[in-house]
Structure formats: C-alpha cells, structure tokens
C-alpha cells in the first residue's frame, strides 16, 4: 500500500502541495476569504449540529457595520433569508424526519490582532466581519447511510463552501461550488 501511495504522492506532490496550502489557509488560520465559507455538521446518534461560518459579504453583501436603516434592514433580511432557507441549503433525506432549529445567527466583526500591525488594515479596521449561523438538528432516524445535499444557490456570493461532516466514525469533507452537491454518509 505504502509503495503505491508514495508513487501517487510523488506524482501529485506539486499540485497537492498547492491544494493543501490553500486549505490550510482556509481552515487553520481562518483566513477571511470573500465568497468562502465553512459548514460543519456533526451528529451524535440522532442529535446533530450545523455550523456555518463565512465572510459576511457572501450572505449580506457588505461587511461594514450596519448603521443606516437601509443597511440594518438588509442585514435583518439576510439573516431571515438564511434561517428560512437552511432546510433547502442543507437537505437531509426526508425519510429521516430531521427537524432543524436555529441556535444562533449573528454577525461577528473580526478582531484580527495581526491586522493592526499593517498600516492598511488600520484604516479598514472592523470592516471584516463574519456571518455565523448555528443550528440544531434532531432526526428520527440515524443519518448514517443516508445522503445530504448542499445547495447554497440562494446565496450567489457564497461560491466556495468547505463542508466537513462527522457522523459517528464517518468523517467526510466536500467542497461546494456553485452547483448543489450530494454527499453520502457512509
């Protein structure tokens, strides 16, 4: 096995190195990428959690603090839109009888400590913000072996969603670009 793998690795090391680099930026440093977002889903038996985090720009359309009434309305609308659309964006098998309920939906201004050192970011301080949405899921049957479909087309500005799924021993990731993606949990 290892021999096979090492050949694979050698052959692909360059492209993968580039790939992994991009990913590490995404996840570990939580780099703020407009259009990018992460979606984590975890399940313990029948209870699960959906955690969405992405640049606020992708959901709302801007990232500065909402001051005008117009802005505030936009924010409120976006939050409502996200909440009402969650069950069409993360679609569980209907036979599982999953019920998704909101836990928390908010916009978090980023307090990037290292940004302060940069002259440029001083000006833009507080302008980056993240949209965070957490939901609780309760299903009647285990999601193991079923399929979950991710369809974030309602939010056109989210075009690179990294999805991680943890269900018992199953650990999966997938990337959702513009088109809906279906992932089998097994």
């Amino acid at each position: 096995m290892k021999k096979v793998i090492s050949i694979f690795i050698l052959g692909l090391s360059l492209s993968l190195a580039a790939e992994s680099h991009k990913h590490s930026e995404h996840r570990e440093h939580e780099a703020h990428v407009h259009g990018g977002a992460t979606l984590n889903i975890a399940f313990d038996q029948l209870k699960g959690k959906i955690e969405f985090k992405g640049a606020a720009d992708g959901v709302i359309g801007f990232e500065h603090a909402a001051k005008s009434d117009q802005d505030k309305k936009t924010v409120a609308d976006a939050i409502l839109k996200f909440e009402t659309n969650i069950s069409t964006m993360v679609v569980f098998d209907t036979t599982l009888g999953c019920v998704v309920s909101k836990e928390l939906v908010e916009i978090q201004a980023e307090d990037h400590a290292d940004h302060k050192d940069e002259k440029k970011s001083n000006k833009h301080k507080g302008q980056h913000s993240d949209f965070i949405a957490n939901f609780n899921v309760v299903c009647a049957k285990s999601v193991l072996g079923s399929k979950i479909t991710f369809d974030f087309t309602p939010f056109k500005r989210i075009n690179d969603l990294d999805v991680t799924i943890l269900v018992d021993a199953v650990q999966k990731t997938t990337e959702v670009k513009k088109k809906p993606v279906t992932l089998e949990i097994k």
Partner: protein
Amino acid sequence: MIYLKLALKSLRNRIFSSALTVISIALSVMLLLAVERTKRASEEGFTQSVSQADLLVGARTGPLNLILYTVFNMGSASNNISMQTYEDIQKNPAVEWTIPYSLGDGHKGFRVVATDENFYQHYRFRGDQKVEFLSGKPALDIWDVVVGSEVQKKLNYNLNDSIVIAHGVTRGEGIQLHDDKPFKISGILKPTGTAIDQTVYISLLGMEAIHIDWKNGSQPTKENSTPQDQMTKESIKIGQITSFFLRTKSRIQTLKLQRDINNYSEEPLMAIIPGATLSDLWRGLSNIETVLKIISFMVMIVGLFSMLSTILAGLNERRREMSILRSIGAGPLQLCLLLVFESAFLTFIGLMIGLLIELAAFFILSGWLESQFGFYVTGDSVTKTEILYLLLVFIFGILIGFIPAYRASRLALKDGLSARI
C-alpha cells in the same frame, strides 16, 4: 425458443470467432472490474488507515503534511508539541482518549514511533480493527520495542532480539546509532495492511531515554552519557511529542474542540479531522484512478466493437442463411432479434466469464496481495457500482447488436430470397 436454439447453434458453428469475441469482452470486463476493485482497496487502505480518531493534533503546518508524517511516515514534522500542552488538552472534559506519537528516529529503513499504552488500547483502523499481537506484549517498559509484521518479516526478528535505533533517520541505514542503548523486542504485531506493518514501536520513555544527554543534536561521549542500567521510569521526564490522535466523547464536541485547539494561545497547534483530510487527499489522488477507469472503459468499448466487427464480417457469409430463414417464414424482425440476441448472448457470457475470472483471481490472490501490497478488499465482493458497470456494458452490447441486426434485416429485404454469394 427455436430462435434461441438457432442462435446458439449458429454461434457454435462459428465457435472460433464467437470464443474470441467472448474472450475479448471477458478480458475487458475483468480489467474494468479489477481497476474498480483496486480503486476500492486503495481507497480503503488509504482512508481507513486510522479510524475512530476524531482529531489529529500537531504543530501548525499543512493538514496534508501532518497526516502524511503521522500516518504514512512521509516527510517530517516541523515542530513538536510540548508535553505540557498535550497534558492540558488531554484534561479537556470533551476528550475521551489520546494517543501520543513521538517521531524522528528510525530502524534499518523503518520508522520508529514512540507512543504509550493508549496506542495498543485505542488505535483503530479499517473501521473497528484493533492492533493485535502475533506474539509478545506492548512496549511499555523503557527498553521494550514492538515491531510491525513487515519489519519482523524483512529483518527476520524474534521475540527478545536486541535491536538498535538510529538517530534522526527514518529511511535507509542510520548514521548515528543509539548503539549504547539497545532495545529488546517485546512483541510482534499481526499484519494490518496499513503503515503499522512497517513501523517499530517504542515507549515515549524509551524515546526520551535514548536522547538523554544529547546536546545540540550531537551524541554524548561515552564518559558523560548516563548508562542504560541507571535509567528508571521515574528518572525520565518526557518533554515533548510530535503529534497525537484524539477522540472526543461526542462528535458535536469535536468541532468545538478543533476550533479551541486551532486557537490554542500557548502554542501554535493544528487539529485536523483525519478521515476528512484523508478523503480530501484521496480525492486528489483519485485523478489517477479516473484515468485508469477511462482507459478500462476504452478497452471495454474496443472489446464490444471487436464483437461488432466480428458479427458484421460474419454477416456477409450468412446472407444465405438469412435468405433461407426468410423463405421459410422468418420475417426481418425475427432476423433482427436473432442477431441482437446473438450479441447480447456473447456480451452476457463475456461479462460472466470476466466477472468470474476477476472474482476468482482476487479470491486466489487476496492473501498474496495482502501480504505484498497491503491490498485489502473488504465489504461486498461485487458492489453496486460494479453491477451498474456490468449492466451498462450489457446494455451497450445489446445496443451494438442492433447495428448488424439492422443491416441484416435490410439485406434480407434487399436480397429477397436469392442472395447470390
């Protein structure tokens, strides 16, 4: 029924070309299935190298790098994790168990992993497979060493043999040897088909012990090194480890813990979900598999087209046969069905033979493949995907049969009853 008999007798009459057609289809089916099975086995071997561990934690680096050096012994860690941090995370109430790994040394081309009893207790691969002993017991004492099955086979080790660990080299022969402090083989592991087979396991204490008195990366001289017999478990203090696996009590906690570890302020750490990273990695590798699959589909198509050309070539010789059938009441449609049945039949037999050969080959060779390549095939012997492929090929074979069938019925109409040949 009579048409079936006619078709079969006709095929038997052309046994040589029919057999060649069947063989070419069988071989291409076999190739297609073998590629599919290889893909499954390598995916399995790859993504199932470690299971049930929710997080893999190491110093901050790329997730790929972390998984490669921890699980597959490729590349090396850029930094270590202090023992204090490890213990700190271990104490987190969300944590069920942890398996520490301390890496960096080697033994005759195999890598040395220093770990503790948790490894033997909690490490799982391919679902729920445990690390099991062929003989002996875990390496828990300072000078104990456990060898993987391949290490044992290649170096022909027995229990209680004395071995020396090389410093800093995980590949090839070491230059600096910890030859003042030999280890004794306390256990030999059963084959697992994962990187475990090519690994030498010692205790964290042993790893620490062989590096006591080392200064600035150089070996201590004989005079100022602590003699082996003076070292006790109590006198050794473990300073650092390379990475560790971690299982949380619940999956929901995993996500939070991962965030917390990634934001750990005392030390730059990274926590990844091993299965997820492995499947990510596999997706990258699966390009090769896609290429292989495309090639085998091409071979399949070539096989089917060779059937087409054989039947078409035979058709001219059989115009007379068609005329006779027509004169005694068989219509163009019946002739058409006769030929479609012929290619369907050839395809079916080819498929079955191909499937049988492939299954038999894997059945017979599985032991050898396991021992030589760590090539494990678990689960169904025929998967849904494979059945789908076979069905696809069958349908394609039938569709291809319509080409000579159409031609034959056209010829029959054109020739009337008196094809001159």
